[in-house]
Structures are given as C-alpha cells and as structure tokens.
C-alpha cells in the first residue's frame, strides 16, 4: 500500500470536498492566466503603439541629450557605427534623426513645431509615417469649392461641418462619417473628389517638408503652400527657411499631430547649420522581452564604447508610459493576490475540516506506531495531489485559451476600437503568449497550498494521542 495510493483513496473518500477544492484551484488558475495574458497583451499593444511606432525601443544619443535635447548635444553621424548596430541580430531597424524646435508660420499664424529630420527610406522601415499619409481633408476651402459648384444637401453639409478640419488616410474612413446619413452615392463622389489631397511622403533629396494634419489645419495650409520656419541653429546660429509642403500625415498621437514637421535629414542639417550631425539613432528590436532588451542594450554599448554616446531604453525615456503600465500592472497583481487569498482560505477551510474529521484516525495511527512526520507527509501529499490536479486542469484549459486568442486576437468594439482605428491600428487585442507569468500562477497556488498545509502539520505535531483517540 503506497502512501500515494492511500492519499488517493483519502481524496476519493470525500469526493465532493475534493472536487470543490480542485475546482477552486482550477478556476483560480484559469482566471489568473487568462487575465494576466490579457493584461500583458494590452501592455505590449501599448508599447507597440507608442514606442515602436515612433519612439523606438532603444536610442543611442549623447549623454546630455536626455536632459537637454538641444542641438549642442547632438553628435557626428557615423555610418560605420550605424551599420555595426544594425548587425546585432535582435536589432530590427535603425534610423537616424535630428530633432529641433522651430517656429513655423503661414500668413499671420505662427506655431511652435517639432522639426524631425529623418532619413526617408529607413524611417519608412522604422515608423512608416507614409502609412499615415493624408488622402482626404475636410477643409473650409474644400467645402467652399463644393458649394460653389452645386448646393449640398443639408445632412451632408452638417456632417462636413461637424468634422471640419479632420483628415483621413483613405476614402473608407471618410465615407464612414456619413454612414448614419442618407447621402447619395453621387454626392459622396463629389465630396471625395473635392476633399482629395495630393500629397506624398518625403524623399531623400527633397527640399520641402511633410507636416502633421492638425498642424496643417491650425496653420490653415495645404499641399503646395509654403511654411516659413525660424529656429536657432547649431552653436547659436540663427536658422531660417521657407519650405514647401509636400505632404500631410495624420499621426496617431494627437500631441505629435499638432506640431510635427518632417524634413529630410540633410535638409534639417542644412536648416540648423549642423552639417552631418544627428540627435540619436532610434532602434527597434525583434524580441522586446526584458532579458533580450538588456542583452541588446549591452551589445550596443560594446559597439559604441569608443564614442561619447550612451544607450537609453524606452523605459528610461518614457517614464510616464512606464508608470502607467506599472500602476496597471500593480493593480492586476493586487487582484491576483486577492484571488489567491480567497483560494487560500478555501483550501485552509478544507484542510481544517479534513483534519478534524480524521483526528481519531490520526490518533490511532500514531498510537500503533506511525511517525508523526510521516503522517504529516501523507496529509501534505493529499493536498499536493489536489493542487497539482487543479493546476494541471487550469493549464489544460487556460493555455489553449490564451493560445487561441493570441492567434485570433479579440476584436475590440466601442470607444477603444475607435481610438485604435484613429491611431491607424486594427482594433485587435492580442493576448500575451505563454511566458513566465503562466508558471508563476501555478507556483503561487502551490505556495498557498503549502501555507495551508502548515495547519495540519502543526496540528499533527502537537496533538496528544490520548486526546485524539478519545474522540
């Protein structure tokens, strides 16, 4: 008669209690891993949206640039260095940028803008701004033009007025604003025709700029208009220039969208009198796990050792996002903690009942010669079997669930979906794949079970045989 078999029969003895205990563990594990997978999935989505699409996972820059992002803290562009970094296996894309602030004006409207000097080709691979190129804009001009030819129906007019100033990256998005209205196909074609924007994205040798859509609206400019820009150049030189607008893009981030001016890198260097200087290399990675990011950061550090540069991760540079994720993560963990406390008390209750029911039996066993330690072990064994079955079942159901939703991401609806679509993403929410967090849920349950086991262990070590037998 092995102890395992004895434990198994003891579990069978009170089937209902065993079933309840196992299912509480099962549901806890299932809930925990599915919830965690969702949470972690949403974080990687946030990171993908905010970081990968503009910021970059890692930046290489002058040590003082983080505190004082001025042209004085830029550095000499080094082709070999860039190539060296791109050769690191986990590095997906590298692009060089020059950033500076400038005043942009058109007519008598002036606004502070962020000038981003980019290498158009590598930037396309990196953040692909071209993807956000505006094709349709509902401007006052367009409306006037429409009305001049032929009066619009009241509804169409109303919708256009409601969305005046908005930009659209494709016709489908523009058409969607009319979806609740009775608008004839004919009129839709007229609207599409009149609001069309013929912009394009930057090319290396361009001497014009591409600006963001809210900025274009604010300055009341369009393709073909010119922007007058004033700035301070490198080493205090004053910079000024006139730049034709070649294209308009709609940047998902509203803040960036209200003040962004893209320029080819060479033009930006010219404008700011900082020939061949760049502000940073922005780097995106394939594998963004903490360990891989750390390893890659280290590889980059080794390659830039000779230059007076430093490596910054997006976490270093984006405290706000990091804190946002962290606080959400903490509340997620707190919820799990509560869940496990509940499970703990469930198991604890089970153990107490079980011990009390079997006290006489324990007394007999110790009286006839069973060592207390061995007795305690048989009880712990029973608890562990329940824990393992519950955890295994939880994994058995939970893992396919997260696997499924990782491959078939959940399609978001409502506000969240709208927000994501505005940002140019499909409103899909992938769950995080299998990872350490899955293992931790099992470990946590095991710890709870072991903690609950302290009760019978204590009870068994302390009880007096004569008292136990009397019951």
């Amino acid at each position, binding site marked *: *008669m092995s102890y395992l078999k*004895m434990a198994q*029969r*003891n579990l*069978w*003895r009170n089937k209902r209690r065993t079933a309840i205990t196992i299912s509480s563990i099962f549901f806890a594990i299932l809930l925990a891993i599915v919830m965690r997978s969702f949470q972690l999935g949403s974080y990687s989505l946030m990171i993908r949206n905010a970081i990968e699409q503009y910021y970059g996972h890692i930046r290489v820059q002058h040590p003082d640039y983080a505190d004082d992002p001025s042209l004085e803290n830029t550095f000499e562009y080094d082709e070999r260095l860039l190539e060296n970094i791109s050769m690191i296996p986990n590095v997906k894309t590298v692009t060089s940028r020059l950033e500076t602030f400038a005043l942009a004006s058109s007519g008598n409207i002036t606004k502070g803008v962020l000038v981003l000097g980019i290498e158009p080709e590598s930037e396309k691979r990196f953040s692909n701004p071209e993807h956000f190129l505006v094709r349709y804009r509902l401007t006052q001009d367009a409306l006037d033009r429409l009305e001049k030819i032929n009066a619009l129906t009241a509804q169409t007019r109303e919708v256009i007025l409601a969305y005046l100033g908005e930009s659209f990256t494709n016709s489908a998005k523009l058409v969607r604003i009319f979806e609740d209205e009775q608008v004839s196909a004919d009129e839709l074609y007229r609207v599409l025709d009149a609001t069309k924007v013929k912009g394009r994205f930057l090319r290396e040798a361009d001497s014009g700029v591409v600006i963001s859509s809210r900025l274009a609206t604010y300055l009341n400019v369009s393709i073909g208009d010119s922007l007058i820009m004033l700035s301070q150049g490198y080493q205090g030189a004053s910079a000024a220039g006139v730049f034709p607008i070649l294209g308009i893009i709609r940047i998902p981030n509203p803040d960036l969208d209200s003040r962004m001016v893209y320029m080819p890198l060479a033009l930006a260097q010219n404008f700011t009198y900082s020939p061949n200087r760049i502000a940073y290399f922005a780097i995106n990675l394939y594998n963004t796990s903490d360990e891989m990011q750390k390893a890659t950061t280290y590889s980059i550090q080794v390659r830039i050792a000779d230059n007076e540069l430093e490596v910054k991760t997006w976490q270093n540079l984006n405290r706000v996002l990091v804190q946002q994720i962290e606080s959400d993560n903490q509340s997620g963990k707190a919820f799990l903690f509560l869940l496990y406390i509940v499970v703990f008390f469930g198991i604890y209750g089970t153990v107490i009942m079980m011990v009390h029911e079997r006290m*006489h*039996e324990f007394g*007999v*066993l*110790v*009286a*006839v*010669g*069973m*060592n*207390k*330690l*061995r007795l305690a072990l048989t009880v712990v064994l029973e608890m562990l079997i329940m824990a393992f079955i519950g955890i295994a079942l939880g994994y058995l159901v939970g893992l396919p669930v997260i696997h499924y939703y990782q491959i078939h991401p959940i399609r978001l609806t409502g506000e969240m979906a709208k927000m994501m679509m505005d940002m140019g993403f499909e409103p899909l929410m992938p769950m995080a794949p299998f990872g350490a967090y899955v293992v931790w849920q099992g470990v946590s349950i095991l710890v709870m079970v072991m903690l609950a086991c302290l009760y019978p262990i204590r009870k068994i070590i302390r009880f*007096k*045989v*004569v008292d136990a*037998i009397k019951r």
Partner: protein
Amino acid sequence: MAIIEVVNVDKIYNDSDVKVVALSGINLMIEQGEFTAIVGPSGSGKTTLLNLLGGLDTPTNGKIRVGDVWLNEMKGSKLIDFRLRNIGFVFQSYNLIPVLTAGENVELIMQLQGVPAMQRKQVAAEMLSKVGLADRVSSRPAKLSGGQQQRVAVARALASRPKFILADEPTANLDGKSAESLLQIMEHLNRTEGVTFIFSTHDQRVVSRARRVILLEDGKIKSDFAQ
C-alpha cells in the same frame, strides 16, 4: 522478569481548574503470557492505566518498565517507534483506517516496521485467518460488522509481533454474540500462541474469562487476583 513493571505510579489531570486524581499509588507486575482484565466502574482509571502501559501518556509520578526499557526515558518518535515494535493496541471502536481494506490495515503496521511487501501480504492473510476473517481480506471496514472490525484490529495488533496487546474495552460496542466470539479468539491466541493480553472491561461475562483480574476503584488497585 515481568514484561511490565509499574512502580508507584500516580496520574493527576491538572489541565482543567479541578485537579483529578485518575490513578494513585499503582504498583503492578505483568508476566509474559498473562490474560488479564482490568475492571472497575466507569471513571475508575482503567483507560488511564492502559494508556500509561502503552506509552500513550506519561505518569505524573512513578515509572513504568516495558521489557527492559523504562518508558519515561523515551520521547517523541523514539517512543512511537518503541510502540510500533513492542505493543499492540485494540481500541474501543474505530480502530481501522477507513480507506484501507482489512488486509491493508493489517499490512500497514508491518509496512511501518519495514517488512517487505511479499511477506506482509502473506502474514496479513495469516493473521486474518487466525481471527476467522480469511475471506474478508479485501473488505473495507465500512463493509464489516463491529465485531469483525475488532477482530481485524486484533489481527493488526498481532501482525506487529508485540510483547503484549492492550485492549481498552474491546467489547464495549459489541453485541453479546460478537463480544463472545472476540473473547474466544483472544483466549485462543493466548492459549495456543502465548500472546499476552491486557484488556479493560466492565462486562461481567468478559471478566469471567480472564485469568487474572485487577480491580480498580477511584484510581487505586482494590484487588488483584487470579481465577
């Protein structure tokens, strides 16, 4: 040499507010092969005495020798192991582990002793047949009558090859016929195999089968005679 020697033993329960003197000034010798009944009215100290003899509890004063070992010199797991190898127990009721079959209940004690599996099976079957339950080896306790359960308990006690078997009111919960048959078996084992039995009872019919009767009253030995 007597297998049990009790010297000036007192047992005083002090755990509640009132002090209960359960045993006082007990001196006793028990020889190998005895078939001894400890009798007396309820509350006279029978259970207390058996518990002390079995090393399940410790006397307040005095000492007890079992074989060549003084029980007060052992503690914890050493004492448990001593019980395993030297003393057989039959309690009033619910002696058996409910999830184990009769055979496994008997085997369990040998397993604790480290007897190899093959031998365990064989001995268990042998012991069960000695108590007339050869055909119930694979029955769970719940499927056995009270009398049969007590007989399995005797078989289990026997299987450990103890120096003596302590039985605290083994017939208390049995009907007349079952009590009779249990006693017969115990007597038979005592006669033919020399197994030492010390049992408590307040059942007159059981008393009449004992060869030595120790009468307790208010925790003192009132009389001690052979019959």
